[in-house]
């Protein structure tokens, strides 16, 4: 039996790493760091049975194993291929892989509407990142992009089927996190669509996690819809005591000033929810949609944002606003302002608290 627990040596992009038997190539690559891991659109390590659908994680296996060092004839999906002793994997060092990935991105974008200026996911969208890294500027398809009749799936989640890449992650969330799944993929081929059959509202305590697992903007938060761009809000880590069983209570708040615009679960470098004590940190709908006040939460500190992410564009460094010392220096007198921008500006008026609206803002909301 001792032999079964033996670690397996595998070489990824000329770097050797030792992993447990039964690990997939992508998980072994993730041990090396985010720049070595193949991009994944459908694989989600916290969801059982995910992966194998989007083909973005294709890698070349230059040597199958130490016992049989022949290369695998085709590129393999690294999220579904388990490691073998002495396997040699080429990811970014292989021209074939990069070329295939460009092709996969082109395929994923064939039906994508590219409405990033409207989409709430823009800025934290994995399809956006992937197409920047691997995509070509133009498309070669001449056909009309598929469109769908808009379906309302409840008051909390907005479904944009045109943006969907059919990764099945949200279906697995509903299967594995909630007691009853009411949505799935109906029809097939070009018409395959996420849908509730027949028109039901998705309503259970953990349905909001579908938003977090969605790699594109197909499922977005209706309470945050159009309220702000991701990169203008400030993410902070916060927690609260949540009574809902299964909810970890640890979340990221996206703030504008003191207003909580959005609550999401915390993400790890691969865009999946962080694990706490070995358990994935899913959060319940009460935390996500109802607790939109900073007083509901205990703020821990700023969320670490990758240097290259547009979310860091607001250049924040500290959580607290630095102390205003002008009055102190001037013996208690207030500085004479030539103009107070808040008395002139119509944006971000205190009487219009967008975070308290549980729906997107409309024209009449600004007429107060």
């Amino acid at each position: 039996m001792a032999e079964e627990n033996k670690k397996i040596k595998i070489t990824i992009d000329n770097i050797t790493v030792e992993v447990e038997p039964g690990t997939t190539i992508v998980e072994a690559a993730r041990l090396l760091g985010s720049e070595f891991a193949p991009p994944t659109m459908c694989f989600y390590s916290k969801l059982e049975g995910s992966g194998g659908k989007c083909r973005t994680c294709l890698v070349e296996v230059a040597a199958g194993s130490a016992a049989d060092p022949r290369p695998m004839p085709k590129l393999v999906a690294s999220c579904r291929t388990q490691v073998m002793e002495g396997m040699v994997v080429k990811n970014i060092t292989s021209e074939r892989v990069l070329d295939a990935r460009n092709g996969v991105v082109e395929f994923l974008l064939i039906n994508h509407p590219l409405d990033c200026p409207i989409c709430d996911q823009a800025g934290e969208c994995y399809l956006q990142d992937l197409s920047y890294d691997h995509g070509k500027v133009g498309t070669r398809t001449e056909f009309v992009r598929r469109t769908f009749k808009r379906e309302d799936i409840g008051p909390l989640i907005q479904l944009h089927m045109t943006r969907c890449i059919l990764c099945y992650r949200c279906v697995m969330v509903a299967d594995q996190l909630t007691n009853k799944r009411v949505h799935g993929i109906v029809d097939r081929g070009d018409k395959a669509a996420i849908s509730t059959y027949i028109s039901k509202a998705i309503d259970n305590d953990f349905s909001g996690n579908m938003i977090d697992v969605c790699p594109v903007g197909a499922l977005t938060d209706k309470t945050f819809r159009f309220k702000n761009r991701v990169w203008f809000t400030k993410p902070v880590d916060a927690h609260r005591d949540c009574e809902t069983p299964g909810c970890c209570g640890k979340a990221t708040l996206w703030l504008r000033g003191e207003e909580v615009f959005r609550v999401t679960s915390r993400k790890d470098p691969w865009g999946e929810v962080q694990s706490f004590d070995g358990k994935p940190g899913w959060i319940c709908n009460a935390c996500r949609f109802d607790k939109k006040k900073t007083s509901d939460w205990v703020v821990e500190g700023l969320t670490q944002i990758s240097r290259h992410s547009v979310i860091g564009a607001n250049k924040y460094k500290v959580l607290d606003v630095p102390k205003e010392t002008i009055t102190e220096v001037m013996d208690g007198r207030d500085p004479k302002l030539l103009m107070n921008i808040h008395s002139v500006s119509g944006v971000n008026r205190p009487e219009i608290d967008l975070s308290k609206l549980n729906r997107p803002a409309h024209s009449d909301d600004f007429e107060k």
Partner: protein
Amino acid sequence: MQSLTNRVQPVDRSPMTIWEKMYLPAIVKGMGITFSHIFKKNPTINFPEKTRPFSPVFRGLQILNRDEEGRENCTACGLCAVACPAEAITMEAAERLPGEEHLYREEKYAAKYEINMLRCIFCGFCEEACPKDAIYLSESFMPSDYLRSQFIYKKEDLLIPNPKEDPEGYKKALGNRAAQKKQKD
């Protein structure tokens, strides 16, 4: 001391001669220069009755564009605001209600859009960043004012005239810049 350039000329501090002390020749020479300008071409123009043609790369006051049907192009994507080096642009978005389709081109639009003209440096990055052809720097100056509060330009101040109601005003406000940019693309 070693001079930095070869154009340095030492100041002549020798005492003036009688001829120089009379000053008259110098005055005559100076008046000669002055009167010679009467016969030269006038370099100034009578602004604002007459205006000079702008350079094709002139960047003036921003306008928010509409499409041919008079709907606002802006979808409040925030790319102009994130590209703005002076952080002059702010906006708030809203969802289009049924019945507002003739006002806004897409389902999301800018309910509030402001440019702080005290901050704006007219670099044109907003125009370059815009994916929706919605913001252009026009061929007109920003008007001056006595009050600072007048320089916070709201959406009403920036929007181009509706091409359906006022086609003349629309054409004038759009100028040649939009057509030039389309040609470049």
